[in-house]
C-alpha cells in the first residue's frame, strides 16, 4: 500500500508539472501568435514604444521570447512557477491582482459545487441502484429514458430553460405572492444574490447536479446488475441471509467501488458545468470569472483559473484512486 501511494504521488507530481508547462506554453504561444496583449490595452489609440514597454512590464509580458514564435519561454516558465508557488497569479486587464479576484470567487463556486455534487452522488447512485433492482420494470425504463434524455439535451440548454421557467416565471409568482425577501422569492430567482449565497445557489446547484446525473446513474445500474448475478451473491443467499443484507452488504458495497472511479471523471464535467452555470446565473465564482475573462480575452485570468481547477481536479482524482485502493482489497497487491 505504501509503495502504491508513493508511486501514485510521484506520478501525480509529474503530471502536474507537465500540465502547468502545457498551460504556460499555450499562453506563450497565444501571445506569440496574437501579438502582445499590451498593444490591445491601448485599443485604437496610438502609443509610443515606451508606453507599450511600460504596460508590457506591468503585465509581465516584456520577455523578448514572446516575439519568437514557438519559443517555450523557459525563463518565464521558471518565473511563473515561482510566482504561482507564492499564489501570485499576476494582474488582469483592469489592473487588479488575479489572486484577489480568485479568492473572492472561491466561496460561491464551492457552495455550488457542494450542492450539485451531493445531489449528483446521492440521487444518481440511488436511482441507479433502484433501477437495477427493479430491472425491466417501469421504474427502470423511466430511469433509463431519463438518463438518455439528460445525456441528449445539452446542459446549457436545460439550464437556460429551467432558469427562465423557475427563476423568472415561478420566481415572479413567488416574489409577488410572498414578497421579494421571502425564502421562496430568494430561492427562485434567475440570478445570484450575494446576500444569500446558499439560498440563491440552491436551484442552480440542484439543477446542475440533476442534469449531470446520467453517467453515475448508468454506471451504478450496470455495476449493480453485474454484481446481482455474481456467484458470491448466490452464496450469500445460500447462507440464509435476509435479502436486505444480501443486497446491502454483498451487492451494493461491491457495486459502489467502480462508481467511485467515475466520480473522478465526471468531476471534470461538473467543472465545465460550473463555468456554464455560473455564466448563465451570473454567479461571481471561478466559472463566472473564467466566463467573463473569456468574453474579454483576459488570458492571465483564464489560465490561472484553468490551472487551479486542473490542480483541484488532479488532487481529487488522486484521492479517489487511493480511496479505491482502500475499498477494493484486491488492488493493493497488483
Amino acid at each position, binding site marked *: 500500500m505504501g509503495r502504491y501511494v508513493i508511486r501514485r504521488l510521484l506520478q501525480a507530481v509529474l503530471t502536474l508539472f507537465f500540465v502547468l508547462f502545457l498551460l504556460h506554453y499555450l499562453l506563450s504561444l497565444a501571445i506569440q501568435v*496574437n501579438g502582445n496583449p499590451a498593444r490591445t490595452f491601448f485599443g485604437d489609440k496610438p502609443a509610443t514604444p515606451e508606453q507599450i514597454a511600460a504596460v508590457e512590464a506591468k503585465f509581465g509580458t516584456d520577455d523578448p521570447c514572446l516575439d519568437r514564435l514557438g519559443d517555450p519561454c523557459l525563463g518565464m516558465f521558471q518565473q511563473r512557477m515561482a510566482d504561482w508557488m507564492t499564489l501570485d497569479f499576476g494582474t488582469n486587464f483592469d489592473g487588479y491582482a488575479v489572486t484577489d479576484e480568485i479568492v473572492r470567487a472561491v466561496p460561491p463556486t464551492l457552495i455550488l459545487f457542494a450542492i450539485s455534487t451531493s445531489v449528483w452522488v446521492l440521487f444518481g447512485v440511488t436511482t441507479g441502484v433502484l433501477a437495477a433492482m427493479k430491472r425491466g420494470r417501469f421504474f427502470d425504463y423511466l430511469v433509463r429514458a431519463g438518463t438518455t434524455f439528460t445525456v441528449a439535451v445539452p446542459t446549457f440548454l436545460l439550464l437556460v430553460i429551467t432558469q427562465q421557467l423557475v427563476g423568472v416565471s415561478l420566481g415572479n409568482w413567488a416574489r409577488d405572492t410572498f414578497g421579494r425577501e421571502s425564502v421562496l422569492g430568494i430561492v427562485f430567482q434567475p440570478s445570484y444574490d450575494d446576500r444569500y449565497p446558499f439560498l440563491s445557489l440552491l436551484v442552480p446547484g440542484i439543477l446542475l447536479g440533476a442534469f449531470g446525473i446520467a453517467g453515475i446513474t448508468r454506471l451504478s445500474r450496470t455495476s449493480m446488475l453485474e454484481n446481482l448475478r455474481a456467484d458470491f451473491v448466490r452464496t450469500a443467499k445460500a447462507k440464509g441471509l435476509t435479502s436486505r443484507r444480501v443486497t446491502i452488504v454483498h451487492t451494493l458495497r461491491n457495486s459502489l467501488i467502480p462508481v467511485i472511479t467515475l466520480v473522478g471523471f465526471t468531476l471534470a464535467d461538473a467543472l465545465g458545468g460550473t463555468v456554464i452555470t455560473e455564466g448563465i446565473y451570473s454567479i461571481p465564482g471561478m466559472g463566472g470569472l473564467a466566463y467573463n475573462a473569456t468574453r474579454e480575452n483576459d488570458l492571465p485570468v483564464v489560465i490561472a483559473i*484553468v490551472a487551479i481547477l486542473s490542480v483541484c481536479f488532479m488532487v481529487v482524482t488522486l484521492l479517489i484512486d487511493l480511496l479505491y485502493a482502500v475499498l477494493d482489497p484486491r488492488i493493493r497487491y497488483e
Partner: protein
Amino acid sequence: MSSDINERVVEGIDEERERPQRAAGLWRDAIRDLRKRPTVIISLLIILVVLAIGFFPSLFTDVDPKACDISRNKAPAEPGHPFGFSHEGCDYFAQTVYGAGPSVQLSLMVVTGTLIVGGLFGILAGFYGGWVDVLFSRAVDVFNSIPFLLGAILLLTMFRDIQMPFVGARLQAIIPAVITLIIFGWTSTMRLVRASVIEARNLDYVHAARSLGASNARLMFRHILPNAVAPVVSLIPLSIAGMISVEATLSFLGLGVRKPEITWGLMIDDATKWFVNGYPMLLIIPSAFLIATVLAFVLLGDAIRDALDPKLR
C-alpha cells in the same frame, strides 16, 4: 443454451479460422438485433435528414437566412414562413435549416479526427507496450487533468482571432473549434483502443500469426485492429452526439461559431430572453432540432453498444 454449446464446439476449431467466424457472428447478430428496433430506424431517419440539412441546406429552403427585415421581428408564422421570424426579423425556418451546418460539419470532423489520432496512438501504445505505452499514457493523463470544457474554452480564447489562409468564412468559423476539440478529445478513444488492442494482442491467433512471421504492421492492422473495432464503433454516434452538444455550448458561450454565421447554439442564446416573454417558439424551435439530433445519435449509439454487448441490457 444452444449458443453455449456452439461455443464449446467452436473452441475445437483451428484458431486461424475461428476469429473471422466469431467476429462476423458478432456483427451479424448485432445487425439483426438492430434492424428489429424501431428506435434504431427512427434515429437513422432523423440522422439522415439532419445530415442532408447540414450539408445541403439550400435543398430545403429558398429563403436567404441572412436577409432580414427588422420591421418583421418576431412576427408569427405565415405561408412561406412556417416558423415565423426571429427577433431580428429573419426567416426562422431558413435560419433553423442553415443553423444545422456548423454543428453537423464540426462534429463529423472532430470525431474523424479523434478516431484517427486516438486510434493511432492507442494501437501504438497497446501494441508496443513498454516506454511507448508509458509515454502515450502519461500524455493522456496530462490532457485528462485539464477538464474538457475548460481546456476548450482556454484554447479557443487564446486562438480565436487567428486568420487562416485559403479557408472560406464558414470553415474559418469552425476550424479552430475542430482542432481544439480534437486536442482535448482524443484521449477517450485512445484509452478504449489501447485496452482492446492489449486484449487482442494476447489472443491465441495473434500469437500464431506472430510465430508464422507476420510483420508488426500486418499484425496491427490485419489481426488486431479488426478486434479492437467493436467498442469504438458504438462510441462513434455517442461522440458525434457529444460534439454537437459541445458545439452548441461553445457557440452559446460565444466561443464557437460567431455571428453573422448561424448555428442552433447562437439562435438559442438569442431566443433565451423571449422564452417567458411571449415568444417561447423562438427558443423551442432550435432547441427541439438540437435535442432531436443529439437524441438520435445517442439512441443509435446506445443501441449499437447494447447489440454488441448484450449482457448489459
